[in-house]
């Protein structure tokens, strides 16, 4: 086995993206491909998985202990980063990205690398919109808000009707699992489930593929090592996707609690 070091980084800049989301920029870059993630060690608190939102940043939604501690940090503070981990997206020629909420984070590098043609971005309301300016410059950006405060009033899946899905070789998706299930359903109906690539979230204790806390039913695929990105046809066969996940102890939690 080869070392997976926890590299010390300094926070160089903290960007307020939305009232609940911040981007933390590090003082060093990591080689990675879009969709790969890192384990972020918040000293004295916990180590948590985060998608790389660029070669030197993570974009974090505050949801609990560790993310709250992160939100209290200041430029100059240090973190330990294990990166890159897992398998990212495999973008084809023409790529459609579909994001819900902070799910835009791991998709953003596709846009930055010029690998994304069209971007469908959904969120609760206008203030929760992530990377709008950047994405509008780099991609053909379509927006939907749950409350209609901006763009299309409704779900991001609605936007899929407006575009020629079949013209895309790859559809990269990240967001709440119920939203991703909706996307997969549309793709499946269009007969192109295989073109869909979905970035999943499961409770990760080790992040490197040894502990088993992130395994998916029914094949035992590890989200941290075999994923986090899975092809649509694989997920169609999953008895777990969009139905349940497991918590830190390994007990099942139904999908309504899955963000």
């Amino acid at each position, binding site marked *: *086995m*080869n*070392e*997976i070091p*926890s*590299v*010390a980084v300094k926070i160089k800049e903290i960007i307020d993206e939305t009232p609940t989301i911040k981007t933390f920029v590090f003082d060093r870059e990591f080689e990675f491909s879009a969709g790969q993630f890192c*384990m972020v*060690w918040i*000293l*004295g*608190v*916990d*180590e*948590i998985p985060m998608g790389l939102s660029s070669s030197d940043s993570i974009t974090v939604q505050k949801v609990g202990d560790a993310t709250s501690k992160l939100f209290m940090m200041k430029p100059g503070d*240090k973190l*330990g980063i294990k990166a890159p981990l897992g398998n990212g997206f495999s973008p084809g020629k023409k790529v459609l990205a579909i994001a819900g909420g902070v799910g835009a984070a791991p998709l953003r590098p596709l846009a930055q690398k010029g690998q994304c043609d069209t971007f469908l971005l959904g969120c609760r309301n206008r203030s929760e919109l992530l990377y709008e300016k950047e994405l509008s410059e780099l991609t053909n950006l379509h927006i939907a808000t749950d409350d209609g405060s901006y763009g299309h009033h409704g779900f991001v899946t609605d936007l899929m009707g407006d575009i020629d899905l079949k013209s895309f070789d790859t559809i990269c998706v990240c967001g709440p699992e119920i939203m991703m299930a909706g996307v997969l359903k549309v793709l499946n109906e269009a007969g192109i489930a295989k073109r869909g690539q979905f970035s999943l979230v499961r409770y990760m*204790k*080790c*992040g*490197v*593929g*040894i*502990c*088993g*806390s992130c*395994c*998916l*039913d*029914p*094949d*035992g*695929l*590890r989200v941290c*090592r*075999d994923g986090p990105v899975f092809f649509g046809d694989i997920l169609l066969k999953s008895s777990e996707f969009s139905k349940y996940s*497991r*918590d*830190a*102890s*390994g*007990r*099942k939690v139904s999908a309504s609690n899955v963000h």
Partner: protein
Amino acid sequence: MVTLIREDNITAGGILMDNHLILAAGILGTTGASLNRMLSNGAGAVVTKSIGPSPKEGHKGPCVYVMDGAVLNAMGLPNPSSDFIEELNVLKDKPVIASIFGADPDEFHEVASWFKGKVRGFELNVSCPHAQGYGAQIGCNPGLVLECTRAVSRTGLPVWVKLTPNVTDIKESGIAAERGGASAVVAINTLKAMRISTDLRRPVLGNLTGGLSGPAIFPVALRCVFELYKALNIPVIGCGGVSSADNVIEMMMAGASAVEIGSAVLDRNDIFEKIAGDLYSEEGEKASDIIGCAHE
């Protein structure tokens, strides 16, 4: 290289398995699907994540640190407790061993009772080096080891006792297990260890210290197997740092009847297939001729 001939009905410590290679406890063993995957990938039997009397979330991260040739972990025995039983539905009639833990003989017995009719046997975790009140805190007390073993033996299923190397004399723990009615001992669990990030000036594990596994501990595990084989009449299952077929042979020569593999899954998920492919051959020798042969 010395190889083994494939034999039918391979048993070790009273448990029938498909080959001599067993997935170690706590490695990809949290779900039934994952255990099933390891069986499909060539494991001859699998040990579950250690299950205890009530659900535990485990320690805060970092929980695992991977080094060159070694792994450090302090999971803190996260487990869903009795909820785990339903995971076994997809493993009917498969060679599954339930790893269990508790704070005393009663807890061990209670947890064991959930598994009756669902597994081929038990492995008692009296050896985890980083769980307050459990694991090695029991394993370094031979009297308690004996009592816990006896409590689970009452189920009538084979009981393996997994020992900690973090004691002055592992043979004492082995003898206690044997007296308590164990069908086998498993040696070893992890070595108590730690690393510090010099850049961050902090231990790299949330729990500060943890357990060392992987190739680095193989020589220590081998010594424990060797000592136990000599001291006991029950079989010894080798565990610790095995990452090749030659390591398996070496463990067996030291006295192991079968071998558990954990950290090596980091190298490749199909490590069991790979090792079994190298381990067995037409010209191979009988396992019984290899086991303990280094004692001459």
